[in-house]
């Protein structure tokens, strides 16, 4: 391969500003929702004292987990030495940083006292997996930021392999930590499993690869060209393996739960009688997010096409959101057994299945975080050299664009 050259996004004028303004509007609406929630209190959301974590947490955790997986392409290039992925490694790191930032902003904006963020950064209880995760998240920014710099600055290229390895190890720990936020909650029957940490690692690889594929496709099309078919097909094959592995982890999680009699109630709820949660599990997580993408990716007619691979990636992302909804909200909908073996009822809704209907405010807040991640990627693409120059890395015809800047 010739010397690899990256350059900025070629889109300019209205072609650049219209999408950016649309994303900016979504951020503004999200900010308004944040102000509304914080001024009035969380009673304006669908969350209550039964379901305390709702849509903001579903989207935020999905993004945080996906952030780790978005780094797959960079890891495969740097850690596992696959040169074919190298042209896309910087974009992979940018998407990872943007997803993590978007997810964390949603989480912070949903806090009861977001004005005390500085308290969260100065008071630490090191037994709390939440507190440990704060270090994992800030460490991720630092390590992936350095990794990105080493990749993009030619004089620092020699360190990019070591930084890539550090980032790879760090993100596995990060996703294990995120899964453990739930796994360590012994009080909730839907959690309380050591498998949640490893499951989140595997899920993250699939979700992150899927979101990276979508970002790659959008970025290249915005740049006025189609991504190379070979790149998409290769990433599609990787995605298929990761989706299959995710299905395996899902099966292992529920089968181990089903082995224990005390979990039969919650498993029957999630897998058979849980209404929206059962539907989201089978149709969303397993069907849309698992089986359908596998069919698309392994079908000879669609597996190697742009449409097939990108559709599969979008489906995996939607399935990921369904998985987070079932995992986070479904777990809270199921009542906690305080007197096991007894039928319970109270004014505090003990013994009942808890309903949850997200309000417009919390959906807007969550979409604001999504838009923020998109905006960070867009601005990154415009001001720094993330896109491989077509002359050096693509067989597509070069677009009309500013002269490439060697790096």
């Amino acid at each position, binding site marked *: 391969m010739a010397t690899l050259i990256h350059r900025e996004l070629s889109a300019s004028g209205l072609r650049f500003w219209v999408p950016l303004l649309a994303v900016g509007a979504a951020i503004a609406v999200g900010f308004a929702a944040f102000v509304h929630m914080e001024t009035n209190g969380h009673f304006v959301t669908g969350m209550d*004292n039964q379901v305390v974590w709702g849509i903001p947490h579903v989207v935020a955790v999905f993004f945080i987990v996906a952030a780790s997986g978005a780094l797959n392409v960079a890891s495969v290039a740097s850690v596992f030495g696959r040169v074919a992925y190298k042209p896309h490694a910087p974009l992979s790191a940018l998407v990872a940083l943007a997803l993590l930032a978007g997810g964390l902003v949603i989480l912070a904006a949903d*806090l009861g006292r977001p004005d005390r963020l500085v308290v969260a950064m100065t008071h630490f*209880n090191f037994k709390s997996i*939440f*507190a440990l995760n704060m270090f994992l998240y800030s460490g991720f920014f630092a390590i992936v930021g350095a990794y990105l710099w080493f990749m993009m600055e030619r004089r620092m290229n020699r360190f990019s392999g070591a930084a890539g390895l550090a980032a790879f190890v760090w993100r596995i720990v990060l996703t294990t930590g995120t899964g453990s936020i739930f796994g*360590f909650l012994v*009080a909730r029957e839907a959690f309380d499993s050591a498998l949640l940490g490893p499951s989140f690692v595997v899920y993250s690889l699939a979700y992150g690869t899927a979101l990276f594929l979508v970002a790659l496709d959008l970025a290249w099309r915005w740049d006025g060209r189609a991504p190379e078919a070979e790149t998409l097909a290769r990433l599609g094959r990787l995605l298929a393996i990761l989706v299959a592995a995710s299905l395996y982890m899902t099966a292992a999680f529920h089968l181990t739960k089903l082995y224990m009699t005390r979990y039969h109630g919650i498993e029957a709820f999630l897998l058979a009688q849980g209404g929206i949660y059962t539907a989201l599990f089978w149709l969303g997580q397993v069907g849309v997010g698992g089986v359908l993408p596998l069919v698309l990716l392994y079908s000879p007619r669609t597996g190697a096409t742009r449409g097939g691979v990108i559709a599969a990636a979008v489906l995996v992302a939607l399935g990921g959101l369904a998985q987070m909804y079932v995992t986070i909200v479904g777990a809270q909908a199921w009542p906690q057994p305080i007197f096991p073996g007894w039928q319970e009822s*109270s004014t505090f809704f003990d013994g009942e299945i808890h309903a949850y209907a997200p309000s417009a405010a919390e959906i807007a807040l969550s979409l604001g975080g999504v838009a923020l991640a998109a905006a960070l990627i867009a601005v990154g693409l415009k001001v720094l050299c993330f896109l491989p120059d077509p002359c050096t890395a693509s067989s597509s015809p070069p677009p009309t664009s500013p002269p490439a800047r060697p790096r």
Partner: protein
Amino acid sequence: MNDPGRRGFLGTAAAALAGIAIAPGIRLIDLAGARPPELAASGKVRWGLLIDTAKCATGCTDCVTACNTEHGLQDTGRPRTDAQWIRKIDLKDLRSGRQHSAPVMCQHCAEPPCVDVCPTGASFKRADGIVLVDKHTCIGCRYCVMACPYKARSFIHENLTGQKPEVPRGKGTVEGCTLCVHKIDRGDGNTACAEACKAAGHEAIVFGDLNDPQSAVSRRLREIPSRQLRGDLRLDTGVRYSGV
């Protein structure tokens, strides 16, 4: 002028007066088992409750009303988001049809999951076993609500007004039963719920020092069988239940 006898007399009289002034206070503190404000809570005591469900009347909510009054908890007409520090859980054994009613509140665990998961350390356990939330460092993440096996924590979903000075509360933070820590610290020697239960003639809630073998709660615990809620989690709760 400098008569040593007179000076000695004045000194002795001043000391005696000071003694007379302070002694009753010291004696009262001693009687009530309370500690002076400058002293930290002591690990020598472990405050706790015994709930005897055999004496708890179904339909009686005097303990709940007393708690709400004591701490200024108000009904906003939105029960799903309103805070409940103590609630009566009605229980039914599906096989036998046997029914019980029991008040449930923070169990003041020796190994509290809420304290373990709190990222800022706002959830904490005092030396005397009372589990509290520091309202200055709670960021409202609700991880403790997720972690509590007893559904004992409430998140404040809206603006509050007219809070009581001795019961700090506020929107966006998490709260729960404090075991009437303000009453304990001023030497009342009982909780609002236990007082109300006694006033109603049930005496189903007994408060006291679990470390003191002579306390009323310890004596009752020796006399009747009791257990911890979710004893399988081995949290060593400060609240024990009998009859269920």
